[in-house]
């Protein structure tokens, strides 16, 4: 895949920022503020938040596959190891213990 300039690595524990801002956001509401783990580093992509307004989408942002325990996101879960996985951009993530 593409080069990746972001700092997170597979296995890192991350928290999705809870921000409530206008514009074209591809971080779903249900995952904001949740804690998961980096599963894959997909590399750098043009920023859709800028592309949506006719801008060039630079600088590129690193995109990650982040895995969350289903019960951490939605409460009870039939299968105890079920997961929700979301493709999230670097600027929506922060490190967490």
């Amino acid at each position: 895949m593409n080069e990746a300039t972001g700092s997170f690595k597979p296995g890192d524990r991350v928290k999705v920022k809870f921000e409530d801002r206008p514009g074209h956001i591809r971080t779903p509401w249900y995952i904001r503020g949740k804690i998961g783990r980096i599963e894959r580093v997909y590399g750098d992509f043009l920023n859709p938040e800028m592309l949506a307004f006719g801008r060039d989408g630079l600088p590129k942002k690193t995109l990650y596959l982040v895995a969350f325990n289903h019960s951490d996101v939605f409460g009870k879960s039939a299968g105890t190891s079920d997961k929700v996985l979301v493709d999230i951009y670097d600027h929506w993530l922060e490190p967490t213990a």
Partner: protein
Amino acid sequence: MARGHHDIGGLPGGGPIDQSRHELSDWEILADAVNQALGARGVKRTDEMRRAREEMDSSGYRDMTYYERWIASIETILVEKKILTKDEIDRKLAELDSKWGEP
């Protein structure tokens, strides 16, 4: 700010999944093709179309069918980019309406 009307993952109250399918009408196939053709020509990006749907009136978003939302967002983006105007489209539509007419 609030959650966008499109940002519906995990919202409660979702009903059974309707697994029926419908054959696409001519107008839906045309909407799909015009959308793709505009993208292929670099006139607009998918991200712009998504943003247009996110900005539309919320009741419109829920009440329109899938391709109706596409057509509304195609119009929004073309007007925004000053490629077409709403008046032009209205006039052309009036022309077509009289051509199609009641049999």
